């Protein structure tokens, strides 16, 4: 725990020195919301027609609130994934990954410290984005139901950290982070239902979506805050699925990470990049 807090504190110190990073974090969800709105308007011919089209699928739901909540939740997921991948790659390049591995601290503790840092940074972005959006658009997102949504995010982000460990494995294995993270991010962005509810996807894609914690996070946060449909139609079932994903993804992520780290040590080590 001490090691995790030490890593967390070190990274928060760095973040404090570079507040511009938070500003850049905040821009991303705005772009994410603008993207479907602009495309929808362009396809429909006007914003009003685009809203009509949207309401054919999701009657009674404000499309802006729908996209904003999806983008805000996705920014948390994206931060968790991006932070891990870039952390590992960055440390590998500057040499600090070996320094960290030279200490007796558990790799899990170090990764937990990074997770805590990325979660803090993600929640700053989440709150910042929701607050600014709500102040401008008066969507009524800031309220007690948002607290339930945040509780869901805290539960859902745990299996996302399992996914991010697997992404870390990719980065270590293929010695590449930019393209890998971009592909994973945009893939998840599409397949997790940020732009459209996942039940409109073809069956094969829905199966893949259902295996991803990001899908359940995005869908359930919207269900809690906006009153849209839960993925399994019942909050208890959805929570059970998300709850089962926590140990499954965390175990799979940690085991894969440990396995690849061992493989690298048997080969040329983690310092080759």
């Amino acid at each position, binding site marked *: 725990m001490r090691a995790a807090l030490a890593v967390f504190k*070190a990274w928060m110190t760095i973040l404090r020195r570079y507040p511009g990073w938070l500003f850049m974090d905040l821009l991303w969800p705005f772009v994410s919301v603008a993207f479907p709105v602009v495309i929808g308007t362009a396809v429909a011919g006007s914003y009003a027609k685009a809203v009509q089209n949207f309401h054919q699928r999701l009657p009674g739901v404000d499309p802006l609130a729908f996209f904003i909540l999806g983008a805000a939740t996705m920014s948390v997921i994206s931060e968790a994934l991006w932070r891990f991948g870039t952390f590992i790659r960055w440390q590998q390049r500057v040499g600090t990954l070996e320094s*960290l591995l030279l200490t007796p601290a558990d790799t899990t503790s170090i990764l937990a410290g990074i997770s805590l840092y990325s979660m803090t940074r993600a929640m700053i972005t989440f709150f910042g984005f929701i607050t600014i959006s709500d102040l401008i658009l008066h969507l009524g997102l800031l309220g007690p139901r948002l607290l339930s949504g945040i509780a869901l995010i805290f539960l859902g982000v745990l299996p996302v950290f399992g996914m991010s460990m697997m992404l870390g494995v990719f980065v270590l294995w293929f010695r590449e982070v930019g393209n890998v993270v971009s592909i994973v991010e945009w893939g998840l962005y599409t397949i997790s239902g940020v732009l459209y509810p996942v039940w409109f996807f073809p069956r094969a894609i829905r199966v893949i979506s259902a295996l991803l914690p990001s899908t359940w996070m995005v869908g359930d946060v919207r269900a809690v805050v906006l009153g849209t449909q839960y993925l399994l139609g019942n909050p208890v079932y959805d929570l059970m699925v998300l709850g089962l994903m926590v140990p499954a993804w965390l175990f799979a992520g940690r085991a894969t990470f440990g396995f690849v780290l061992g493989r690298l040590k048997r080969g040329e080590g983690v310092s080759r990049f």
Partner: protein
Amino acid sequence: MKAVLTRDLWKIYVSKVRKLFGSKTHRVEALRGVDLEIENGEIYGILGPNGAGKTTLIKILTTLLLPTKGTAFVGGHDVVREPKKVRSSIGAMLMGERGLFWKLTGRENLELFGKLHGLGGGRLSSRIDYVLELLGIEDIADRLFESYSSGQKMLFTFARAIIHDPPILLLDEPTATMDVRNARKIREIVKELNSEGKTIIYTTHQMHEAEELCDRIAVLDYGRVIAEGTPAELKSMIRGSETVVVIRGIIGPGALDAVLSLDGVKSAEQGEEGGEGFLRVIVEGGSEVLGSIIEALRGRARIHSVEQGVITLEDVFMHLTGRSLSQDTRRGPA
């Protein structure tokens, strides 16, 4: 073997360690069966050219790499089975000035790594103060690491290696990018830490460092230990009928090859010192060989002086391999 080793706390033992890199089609054998036994409280030097396998060996001893074959114990702990215990007992410096967070200050870096080694509270603060003072870097400790000069970064990296007061230190060319003054400071501190009882492994390709610091030295070449002993024992290997001759002057092209082709010349190295060229030649035979050398250099060099050289570890390496220590051997044996 393990039962014996665990009694010998802090001892370092390496047996038949091999390390293979690369794919199935292009294998490189970085270590080819290394055996070492390092006593408690020793400064043990590992001398060899670039590519000899020094860093690979150190990385195995620090658990950053796993050996392909063989066993290694550090502080009585198996590097494969007990990596965490090994890491608890060592301090290592093996990435030069890399290895610290550039966006943190020197002090913040030491705090972080101290905590990762299990230190905290007053003990951590007092260790940080002690180490900063020891290295004379307390005045710059609150600057960002990225703002330091190369030598200062090396000093902080050294500070990171000793922050937790480990009984064993593994230092991989710690003075490589330091200026003369800081390098001397590091050597003095290494001696001081050793006098406190710490076991130190010190890799270098600078002979004077190895001679000044090390109780014993292993000469590593192409992944094998080709000689081991105290500096005096190693130097005695080229006593007897062999002599080191240093020829100073303007050494022209072809001079080295001409000398190397002579009977009685075991090895030769060409270099420059103080703006003057020199040839350092190990000869077997004495004056008759010297005469042939001077004859061979006619027209190829303008000789200013000829003197008998003091035998150095560089000469030992040349005697053993026929090559200079400064030669890069990363491509493997010819």
